[in-house]
């Protein structure tokens, strides 16, 4: 689905405007908390099948942006467009139905459920049977239930957690908990996966493993948008990076361009005047 050109829907020469090559489009998005702008007039376009990184100093508004895209917060102004359809005012569960899944910065799991059940709950949006049918355990509902578990097992196998399927989520080691959080998001069959600091707190080995997993997920035709502080991981993983500071997007480009960008260096290291003040 990712490549319109490949499907022959669009002649190769023609520009692709008008099609939702940009799977996610954000227009002049602002979110104020009281008088404070957590995000200020941000435009952002994420193309299909790219791995996009969002970086910035603490308090730059990255997590707020995630919350607005996933629907936990409603924006003050602006638009969020997903696959060409405005979703700005939709509740979270309808956004999940359209294919947006996310993970949280702090590890957020169903801690009293087993690993398999956690992923199975993530599959929830794929259910088509009504309440009555599920309540009566009709053959159709049972079948869906079975498919859900099979799909959950597939995801666990894909992410390398299948040997721990019966462990309670709260008893998993930290690195595996982070991976499980991604599994839960994946179970919803998203076309856009948003990861909030996926490698935070991991040791270098775990980080390498997670980076590799994220690449593999993208290869399953899932677009990835991630916030991360670990520069090495971001530079290694992302094709394009957007840099935020004080709620504004200050730069965008490939990792090489970002490394050289003056504004970015300023944002991270401070300007010379600021430095002298601090000293």
């Amino acid at each position, binding site marked *: 689905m990712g490549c319109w050109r490949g499907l022959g829907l669009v002649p190769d020469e023609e520009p692709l405007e008008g099609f939702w090559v940009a799977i996610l489009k954000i227009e002049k998005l602002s979110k104020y908390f009281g008088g404070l702008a957590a995000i200020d007039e941000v435009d952002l376009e994420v193309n299909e099948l790219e791995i996009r990184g969002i970086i910035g100093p603490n308090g730059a508004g990255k997590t707020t942006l995630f919350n607005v895209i*996933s629907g*936990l917060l409603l924006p003050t102004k602006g638009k969020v467009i997903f696959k060409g359809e405005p979703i700005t005012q939709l*509740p*979270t*569960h309808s956004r*999940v*139905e359209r294919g947006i*899944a*996310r993970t*949280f910065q702090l590890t*957020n*799991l*169903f*801690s*009293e*459920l087993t690993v398999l*059940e956690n992923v*199975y*709950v*993530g599959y*929830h*949006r794929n*259910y088509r*049977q009504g*309440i009555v049918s*599920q*309540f*009566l*355990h009709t053959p159709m*509902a049972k079948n*869906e*239930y079975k498919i*859900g578990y099979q799909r959950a097992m597939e995801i666990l196998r894909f992410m390398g957690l299948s040997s721990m399927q019966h462990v309670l989520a709260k008893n998993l080691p930290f690195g595996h908990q982070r991976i499980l959080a991604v599994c*839960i*998001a994946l*179970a*919803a069959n998203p076309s856009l996966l948003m990861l909030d600091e996926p490698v935070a707190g991991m040791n270098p080995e775990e980080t390498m493993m997670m980076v590799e997993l994220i690449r593999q997920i993208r290869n399953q035709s899932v677009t990835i948008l991630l916030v991360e502080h670990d520069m090495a991981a971001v530079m290694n993983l992302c094709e394009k990076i957007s840099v935020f500071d004080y709620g504004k997007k200050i730069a965008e480009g490939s990792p090489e361009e970002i490394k050289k960008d003056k504004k970015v260096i300023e944002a991270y290291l401070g300007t010379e005047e600021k430095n002298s003040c601090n000293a």
Partner: protein
Amino acid sequence: MLSLTWPKRLLLIGIFLFLGFLPFIITNQYLVHIFILAGLESIVVIGFVAQYQVRLLTFCTATFWGLGAYSSALLSTQLNIDFWFCLPLAGIITGFIALIMGLLVVRAGWITFLMISVVMSEVFVEALGHISALGGWDGISRIARPAIGSYVFFSKASYYYLTLTLTTVCALIFVGFYKSAIGKAWRAIGQSYDLAESVGINIFKYRMIVYVTAGFTTGLSGSLFAHYFGFIVPQQFGIARSVYIPINAVIGGLDFAISGPVVGSIIIRAIPELLRIADKYQPIFEGAMIILCSLFFRKGVIGVLARLRTRSR
């Protein structure tokens, strides 16, 4: 539908045999009466625990119990409707009121929800007391006992079986939910609200399912309660009763959706009676149990039993 291990199945069968032959085992009529009360109460507690699972903390369970009791009693005494129609009608009326109330309050934050439920239980009693058409403070008396043809459920043993049947039915309704994807969604909501929302669970919808189902079963239990005693007064369904319902749930174990409420209700009702201290010391006993539970066994009595079993293995 029920995939259980063999020891668990045997245990369940044993419990059912015991409960099934209880009137023959226990000849003390007063104890049978206690078990009837415990059975009716455990239906209410099952509803409370289900609401607690989706983090709807409510203090008006007795209000819905009263709604069931009053609607059944009024239908029976005013319109001379047969008990066997009053029972389901009481459930449906209570469920319908729960639906309307739910649409208004389920979206609220938990503290607002809690406070509204407290207000509701107060308003309910006052309103009933002041409307003389509904019996006023004197309540409704001479509610007929259920009957099939010429057979009237008059003895304690026969009413016990009626209660046992209804409790089983209500428990099975909730088991049906808990074993399906709906039950998984309930547990997910209880454990992490944000994450449940972000995997696409429509939290409002699932909370409404719990709220209305709990209303329905509580109404059924209220109907049986009214026809058992033959008279009801508003004060029986006040805030005091609503506060005691959660105690049963906590003592049984809040994580155990069916066994917890049943065991909790039996303990709370039966033990003070067995020790012959009920009239004076019932509140003290309940308070002591709550303190013991919150200090030493957070998961309730069933939690302790489950832990003993895993330790012995």
